[in-house]
């Protein structure tokens, strides 16, 4: 009962957050919705006995992704007039929801073929995850680091202000 009510609350938060996210005009509210969804997701992970995953979710999705998005929003600092004008936003959302609904149903129906009860696996704590990461999943885990490295490099390449490049040599300021 407790589990169900926690689930219900978290699910409400997540759905509300995600709908806030796609509905709002201002990116900052969308980001807040996203934040709520992410924290809710972490809660869900905890509810699924994956404590480590929950913490990792908060650390990465909230601590890195949302902060980074917010920082981008701050850097961009878009004024009202620079935001897209979407006069038929709600119509579009409604329309696409109707289009997407069968897809949702497909995914859900497919999933409900799978076993409909949890197995008692116990807590998936950092020890379990760590052992798996360094045995069965070591290759994906290793190349994930390369993915992050290349993404970082890519982000630097794209995001760097090209005008400042010429001053690079003289810019080594001492601390």
């Amino acid at each position, binding site marked *: 009962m407790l589990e169900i009510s926690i689930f219900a609350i978290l699910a409400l938060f997540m759905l509300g957050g995600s709908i806030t*996210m796609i509905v709002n005009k201002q990116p900052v509210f969308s980001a807040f919705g996203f934040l709520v969804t992410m924290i809710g997701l972490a809660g869900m992970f905890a509810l*699924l006995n994956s404590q480590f995953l929950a913490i990792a979710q908060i650390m990465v999705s909230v601590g890195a992704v949302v902060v980074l998005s917010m920082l981008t929003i701050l850097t961009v600092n878009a004024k009202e007039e620079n935001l897209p004008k979407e006069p038929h936003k709600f119509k579009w*959302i409604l329309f696409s929801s109707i289009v997407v609904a069968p897809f949702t149903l497909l995914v859900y129906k497919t999933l*409900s073929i799978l076993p409909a009860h949890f197995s008692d696996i116990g807590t998936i704590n950092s020890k379990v995850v760590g052992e798996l990461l360094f045995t069965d999943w070591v290759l994906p885990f290793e190349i994930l680091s390369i993915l992050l490295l290349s993404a*970082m490099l890519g*982000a630097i*390449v794209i995001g760097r202000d090209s005008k400042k490049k010429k001053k690079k040599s003289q810019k080594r300021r001492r601390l």
Partner: protein
Amino acid sequence: MSPNAFYLLASLLFSIGLVGLVSRKNLFVLYMSIELMLSAVSLLLATLSKVLGEAGGSVISLLIIGVIASEAAVFLAMIINLYRSKKTLDSDRFNALREGARND
């Protein structure tokens, strides 16, 4: 409690992300929608992990979280770059690519 609720939640979240992706023009919303879709998958994987009684799904979830982070970096750098060039967040305003765009 039944995993069906989790399945439903995950598919709903994925679809909400999809809806956001196809119906909005704001670059930030597009970006967050994609992240939401991936997060929904990660929720699904964690659920499946518990259903199957195997921690592998949780590990995949963890890897997906890493992928989300790396995609976020590139995506956000791109948004900054786009905004710098045209001072707008409207994805429809970036429409220079067509037959006539010949300047290199």
